[in-house]
């Protein structure tokens, strides 16, 4: 008889009517899950460096458990070896000793407190591991493609036997801690995927060879862990449906599907479908990949195995998994990044509050931080990883209610506005344009998925409306207006000033502003030089190159995209090359002349670049109004690009921080 841990009745909720397939139960092994929602295991680097669970991680997971409204909430993958070769992240939870069980129990309890199903993942990071030691382990010592990872040591048969045992011991500790589901990670470059892949497994013993032999260690682990799970605790596995390693002779699609069948034969209760490796050169989860692009992999998996199929991977909107489940292509909707950006996302879907969802913009900053030993953070969600800090998560009302004037309705101003209003201030937002969004309105016109940036503005607009923020659109703030309104506090969120270079000729008619170009107001010739090699420069360069123009970027930073996180930046570098955009980095424009600009490199070399139009994207802080406000003795905050030109994330985080502080 199948077991149901917590009763949930969704029938009265609007989301259950709108997305009926997401809110119907499913049986996994002998466990009934009330809905089709799962927070998939995600590292967060919030635990102590020796693997003990911290308050920050418990608070982080509790929020996600709340969000799955009765579904599965999986804790991050644990490493299982005392010598820490399996540890891929400095703040990864450990389970190599019984001393870790109390901490793990705190996570399981937090998930159960929210009446969700507690998932526990075993993750030896293989060739992505050994973050604290010199060598990582793998089936074969295949050199690393990415410098960031440690050299690989080939595992002996004794190492493999020990590894199987460590999986079993760690699984037992998970069960002792009270978890309801055990999951094995075999994806993206972690140890078991290293064994499965023909790229990383060159062994000639029984653990190498054809796909069955490469799956041997996986089968041994499944069978041994299954023994201690018994009938009541389902055992799942995450496996690549497409490694996307064709360029290094990785597994074929057929081999990947064969690995699914073998896992099913070995007794697995569900499979979570993934695509790509950290070493693959194909984009998988960044926003240049359209949403829903990978559903065909789940469909393919369903055609090959009978166990339930789960998948994340660019399923950021509920309609996509709802349809996929309805069509029989998928069984459960997994989420990592959408619930990093908004831990309560599925709850809001259920409650019919989709306008309140803070959507992930698929920038991969979270991943970039993890690989650089930094705690998790989210580009778009300032509260992420601060869930345990009440000043962030539940800011108190102010001691004194103030009249707050916010100048600028871009992402910084809007974020600040709704937070301040929510806490009880009277908030007035002034915007000289007639639309909300500031420069994001233009930035979202850049190709490769940047239209998704607008989701941030939609979310903020909805929150402002609910919090009672008053808007004065089409109103430019002047000294007279400030004196007339006499606010208690002014927040300048006016965005940056676009700065011309030091060189001669920047006053010529063919020098235009990036915003005018993206709005379609500026006349742009066929040969374009973009001044500035940060994100605005890259965005407009790609926008113009897509129109068939010959574009050259000239910028002061040593490399283009200095302000773009490394997990996304490599995409832009490829797109610039693909679109024939030449970037001269570490350079200045010395002079703009008729038909050409003179570029000067940091080391003094100069050369001409043919050009009809120069597009200015370099920015500087905007200090207008600052003096007036200070003269009047009004409390002043400057946020976003007006303070220091950066990116959308900094704008949102600045806005939030000031919104909870006023």
């Amino acid at each position, binding site marked *: 008889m199948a077991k149901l841990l917590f009763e949930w009745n969704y029938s009265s909720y609007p989301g259950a009517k709108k997305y009926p397939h997401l809110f119907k139960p499913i049986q996994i092994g002998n466990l009934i899950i009330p809905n089709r929602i799962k927070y998939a295991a995600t590292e967060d680097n919030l635990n102590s460096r020796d693997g003990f669970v911290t308050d920050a991680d418990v608070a982080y997971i509790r929020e996600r458990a709340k969000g799955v409204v009765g579904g599965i909430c999986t804790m991050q993958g644990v490493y299982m070896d005392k010598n820490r070769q399996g540890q891929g992240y400095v703040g990864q939870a450990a389970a190599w000793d019984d001393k870790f069980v109390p901490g793990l129990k705190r996570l399981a309890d937090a998930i159960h407190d929210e009446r969700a199903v507690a998932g526990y993942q075993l993750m030896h990071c293989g060739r992505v591991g050994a973050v604290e030691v010199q060598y990582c382990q793998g089936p074969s010592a295949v050199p690393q493609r990415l410098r960031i990872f440690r050299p690989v040591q080939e595992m002996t048969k004794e190492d493999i036997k020990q590894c199987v045992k460590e999986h079993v011991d760690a699984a037992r500790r998970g069960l002792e801690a009270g978890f309801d589901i055990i999951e094995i990670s075999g994806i993206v470059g972690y140890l078991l995927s290293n064994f499965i892949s023909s790229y990383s497994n060159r062994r000639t013993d029984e653990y190498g060879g054809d796909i069955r032999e490469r799956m041997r260690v996986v089968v041994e682990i499944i069978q041994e862990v299954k023994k201690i799970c018994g009938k009541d605790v389902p055992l799942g596995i995450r496996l690549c449906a497409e490694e996307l390693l064709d360029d290094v002779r990785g597994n074929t699609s057929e081999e990947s599907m064969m690995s699914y069948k073998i896992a099913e034969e070995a007794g697995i209760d569900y499979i979570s479908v993934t695509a790509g490796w950290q070493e693959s050169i194909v984009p998988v989860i960044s926003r240049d990949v359209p949403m829903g692009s990978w559903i065909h992999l789940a469909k393919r998996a369903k055609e090959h195995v009978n166990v339930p199929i789960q998948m994340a991977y660019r399923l950021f909107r509920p309609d996509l998994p709802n349809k996929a489940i309805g069509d029989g292509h998928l069984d459960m909707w997994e989420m990592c990044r959408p619930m990093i950006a908004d831990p309560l996302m599925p709850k809001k879907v259920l409650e019919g509050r989709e306008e309140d969802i803070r959507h992930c913009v698929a920038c991969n900053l979270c991943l970039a931080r993890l690989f650089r030993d930094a705690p998790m953070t989210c580009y778009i969600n300032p509260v992420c990883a601060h869930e345990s800090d009440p000043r962030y998560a539940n800011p108190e009302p102010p001691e004194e209610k103030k009249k707050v004037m916010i100048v600028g309705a871009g992402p910084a101003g809007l974020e600040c506005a709704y937070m301040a209003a929510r806490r009880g201030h009277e908030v007035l937002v002034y915007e000289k344009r007639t639309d909300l969004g500031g420069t994001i309105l233009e930035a979202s016109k850049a190709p490769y998925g940047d239209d998704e940036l607008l989701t941030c503005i939609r979310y903020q607009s909805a929150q402002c409306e609910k919090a009672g923020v008053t808007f004065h659109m089409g109103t430019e703030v002047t000294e007279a207006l400030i004196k007339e309104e006499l606010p208690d506090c002014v927040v300048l969120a006016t965005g940056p000033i676009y700065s011309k270079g030091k060189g001669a000729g920047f006053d010529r008619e063919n020098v235009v502003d990036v915003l005018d170009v993206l709005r379609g107001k500026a006349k742009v010739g066929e040969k374009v030089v973009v001044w500035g090699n940060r994100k605005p420069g890259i965005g407009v360069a790609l926008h113009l190159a897509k129109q068939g123009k010959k574009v050259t970027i000239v910028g002061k930073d040593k490399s283009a995209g200095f302000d773009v996180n490394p997990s996304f930046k490599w995409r832009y570098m490829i797109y610039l090359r693909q679109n024939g955009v030449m970037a*001269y980095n570490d350079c200045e424009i010395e002079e703009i002349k008729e038909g050409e600009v003179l570029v000067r*490199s*940091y*080391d003094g070399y100069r*050369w*001409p*670049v*043919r050009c009809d139009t120069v597009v200015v994207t370099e920015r500087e802080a905007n200090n207008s109004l600052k003096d007036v406000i200070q003269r009047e003795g009004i409390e002043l905050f400057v946020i976003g690009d007006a303070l220091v030109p950066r990116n959308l994330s900094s704008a949102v985080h600045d806005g939030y921080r000031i919104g909870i502080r006023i």
Partner: protein
Amino acid sequence: MSFDAEKEISRLWGNLHNAQDEIGRTWHRWRQAALEIAGSNAKSLDVSLKAAEITGKEIGKSFLPRLNWLRGEEVWMMSLANGYAGQWIAQGGVVKVEKGQKPFEVFVKWERCPWPTFAKEYGVSMEEDVLCCDRILQTVLVNINVFFNVNYKIETLKAIPRGQGVCLRRLYKA
């Protein structure tokens, strides 16, 4: 005959930078080779300083035909300082020479230097990087001082690898 100056110069510039990168990497590859041959008892700093000494002396010898006393000691000294600067500019640095306030004193300022980046890439300590530069600069003077029968010294006042923004060296008559 058509001629695309942008294409030609930028290709040359690219090649120059690749060559400069190879200079930095070659130093560290040889360092690695020397350490492996020297065995586990050898101290990496000792090995690097020995290499720096040999390098400095070789550079000093190469300066000898180019230094000219005919236009006086001040000009000679500026020419020596520019020789130092040119050596690092060829490797990708941005280096400037400024005359000091005292007689026979000149400052050489590295506003940018590629060497700390290479040191970081090869896991070499920042302090080793500074000490190697010091040793090169000082041993350049060994043969020059004897050849011209002078006694010049060079000292480090600031160093990029020490987080001081620039490398500043004072070349002076002792």
